């Protein structure tokens, strides 16, 4: 089912007769990677569900004009990241929360969400990641969990490779310090 290349999927999508089928295949190919990427940013499963649906709606609207200058998956990651960050901003505006309180809320979600089932150290690592500034948090997640290349991360986040390396280095140091505290 997932044996189609991105190029083949795009060609099928541009054909009216196979458009829906191609989009279905594309969702099945990328839904898990995008879901986990979003989940690491917004933490709650329900919020992730909202964000991933909005992400794919945006992809549906923009895929026809996708110019293939970048890889499809970095383009999808970019949309997903923007949607997740927009979601957090809306949440902050809606509840008139300062940034620190958003982090606290995400930490509370770590304790209360029914779809959290890791061990103590995994939860502690997530808490440490939530203490990082937003950009560092995303960079750390993409490098540590997704093992993404810096060049691809640069394409997704629009930041230079050097800055991303520095960002990841700082993030690792902070997390290591946080984990050593206990």
């Amino acid at each position, binding site marked *: 089912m997932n044996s189609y290349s991105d190029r083949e999927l795009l060609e099928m999508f541009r054909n009216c007769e196979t458009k829906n089928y191609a989009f279905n295949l594309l969702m099945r190919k990328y839904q898990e990677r995008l879901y986990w990427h979003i989940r690491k940013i917004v933490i709650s499963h329900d919020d992730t569900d909202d964000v991933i649906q909005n992400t794919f709606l945006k992809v549906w609207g923009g895929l026809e004009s996708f110019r293939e200058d970048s890889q499809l998956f970095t383009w999808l990651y970019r949309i997903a990241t923007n949607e997740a960050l927009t979601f957090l901003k809306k949440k902050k505006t809606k509840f008139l929360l300062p940034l620190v309180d958003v982090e606290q809320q995400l930490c509370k979600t770590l304790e209360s969400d029914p779809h959290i089932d890791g061990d103590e150290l*995994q939860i502690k690592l997530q808490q440490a990641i939530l203490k990082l500034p937003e950009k560092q948090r995303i960079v750390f997640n993409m490098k540590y969990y997704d093992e993404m290349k810096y060049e691809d991360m640069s394409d997704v986040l629009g930041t230079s490779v050097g800055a991303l390396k520095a960002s990841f280095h700082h993030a690792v*140091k902070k997390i290591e310090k946080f984990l050593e505290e206990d």
Partner: protein
Amino acid sequence: MSEKEKIEFKAGRELPFSVPDGYFDNLPAKIQARIQAETSASETVTENGGWVVTFRSQLAFAAGFAFMAVIAYFGYYLSRPVSQHNSRHVGTDYVEIVSRSISDFEDIDLYRSIENRKKQDTINEATREMYHRYYIRSNNCITIIDEKKEIQP
């Protein structure tokens, strides 16, 4: 051991998150249902006066502006100063002080004043015959008041 490896050694790279059973099996269908709903909604809008929806915010702004303009006009209309005289006479009402003091008043001043009228009357000469003229003599001054009759077309 690098710091990254230390973290990996302590906490691993497993995420402590889970999803409901069958979530990824149902997600594409859920998204496609939303896409279809939004596509058919936008088609319905296009068929039923899409421009109204497209310019809805601009129309609402224009309607609000018109409403405020009407309110402002009525506010001004109701609070404007109203003349004590009949408004049809305001343009030609005419009061001229001939003398400040009754002791200095002489009839000749009054005649001169009448002859050398400064009034810029917009009514043509023919209608002037229709004026009532009042001369008022009060305690310390004499005034001439011209008051125009209502002119029927």
